[in-house]
């Protein structure tokens, strides 16, 4: 029997994978991918909870998250393209203009 906990643990694992991506990669595009993974992990958790409590709110939140992810991609990619045109690279370290 698959319980809520199964889904939540899956979501946690997916989220950790996204974290690995965020921490490990220096390619800005990969960062975007990792962010998508994180968002999807949360989506799974939301709809699982929604199902097991018989409440539609979780699904609707997941729905809105999808909308936000879509807009994020649109704007983020635009910025990324501009950055690439400026610097010719999408290396994360090239963003650093301030030296602490």
């Amino acid at each position, binding site marked *: 029997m698959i319980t809520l906990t199964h889904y939540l643990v*899956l979501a946690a694992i997916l*989220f950790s*994978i996204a974290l690995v*991506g965020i921490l490990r990669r220096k*390619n800005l595009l990969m960062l975007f*991918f990792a962010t998508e993974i994180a968002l999807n992990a949360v989506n799974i958790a939301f709809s699982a909870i929604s199902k097991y409590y018989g*409440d*539609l709110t979780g699904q609707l939140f997941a729905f809105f998250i999808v*909308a936000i992810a879509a807009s994020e991609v*649109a704007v983020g990619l635009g910025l990324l393209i501009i950055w690439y045109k400026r610097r010719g690279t999408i290396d994360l370290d090239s963003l650093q203009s301030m030296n602490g």
Partner: protein
Amino acid sequence: MVEAVAFYLFAALTIAMFAITVMSKNVLYSMSSLAAGMIFISAFFFLLDADFLGVVQIIVYSGAVMALYAFGMMFFDATKDVKEKNPSKKIVFFLSGMIALLLVIILLSPIISEKVKALYPMSEEVGNAEAVGVVLFTKYLVPFEVAAIMLLVAMIAGIILASKRMDESITLKIDQEIEKEQKGEL
């Protein structure tokens, strides 16, 4: 039984796909596996009786977002890998692993289910898409409209940022360039 099989199958597939996404050095591989992972995730939605969300997942992610990435990547030299030097893999994996572990610990502990009450209970009589539609257009109408506007804004922003005057940046001029332009005009 079928549900359990499906769950474990898709869970394994999704984790594998996303692991490839994160680990792969080739951006193209990453993107392909990400698209695959997205489709596998929609399977969970179907399993969870969230049919509408599953469909949206496939359309938006696998269709729109992935297409956007694919087109966006055309602007970059996809074959030229970004040279990544990571300070230490140990830290990364330690942090992520710890978070995963802790989250799992949290989630494995029993949840106090009695205290949770359904605001918009699912009903057996109507289908999922219909139920979502009803709630979306009654209770969540304003957020829905805001989301629509947000998408419109994002679309306009994306177009302007990426398309206009491809050879020149409109927002990120460095100071010397501005000075040069001014001198040229003068």
